[in-house]
């Protein structure tokens, strides 16, 4: 429980709590970006360099931009939302709090098995590449197909239908 872990944890939780609590949608996405960057810093602290940089590149550089584009395109300034949360906010919050309580108690109660002090594993990008090509080649190819399908599907779903009538 080092100081750096606590600082990063505070930044991450603060960013994500702001992301789920702020009124303005764009502020929410910007706070979410801070949360994602905090999670990437936690990955780097755990020694997973490749995953940390991939997290920044994919989440901060692509998913956050997608979300702000979607907010821009669905922004209707005529409608002013009266409340930030929906009608059933109490039930949702209770469920989330209950989930956290269950998970935290499970983590706390299994303290005996969590005392391992293993040395820092060193994983090179070479090893990741090797395992992607030998052991995990099937998930890699399926991921390629999935991303292609998602790309084509997203373009088709979000396409402006007015162009078809011209």
């Amino acid at each position, binding site marked *: 429980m080092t100081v750096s872990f606590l600082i990063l944890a505070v930044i991450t939780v603060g960013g994500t709590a702001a992301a789920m609590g702020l009124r303005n949608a764009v502020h929410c996405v910007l706070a979410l970006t801070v949360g994602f960057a905090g999670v990437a810093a936690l990955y780097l602290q755990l020694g997973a360099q490749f995953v940390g940089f991939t997290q920044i590149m994919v989440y901060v550089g692509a998913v956050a931009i*997608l979300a702000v584009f979607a907010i821009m395109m669905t922004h209707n300034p005529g409608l002013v939302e009266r409340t930030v949360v929906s009608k059933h906010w109490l039930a949702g919050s209770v469920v989330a709090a209950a989930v956290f309580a269950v998970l935290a108690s499970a983590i706390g109660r299994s303290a005996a098995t969590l005392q391992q002090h293993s040395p820092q594993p060193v994983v090179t990008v070479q090893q990741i590449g090797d395992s992607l090509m030998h052991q995990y080649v099937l998930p890699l190819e399926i991921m390629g197909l999935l991303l292609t399908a998602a790309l084509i599907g997203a373009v088709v779903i979000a396409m402006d239908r007015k162009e078809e009538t011209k």
Partner: protein
Amino acid sequence: MSPLQGYLTLSALLFSIGLAGALTRRNAILVLIGIELMLNAANLNFIAFWRFGPHPAALTGIMFAIFSISVAAAEAAVGLAIILAAYRHSRTTDLDKMNSLKG
């Protein structure tokens, strides 16, 4: 409290924040980013177990996290496309108002 417990508690906290956001916000896009937060919390769990677990050389945690990030990106793209299409139909992203399939 051991470091692994710290990371697991943090990931449980992130998961429940994401869940609370996904269940209570009105804007459909913010529900989607709540889901992204839950996926991030699960990835953090995987990497924490990879680091402190018994077999880090098997790279399972890192591989799972990489594939999970890719799948999450694809799902965010498709989800936002669906929200855009629904917005074009009903002119609102308020989930309380999008409660009937009749168009």
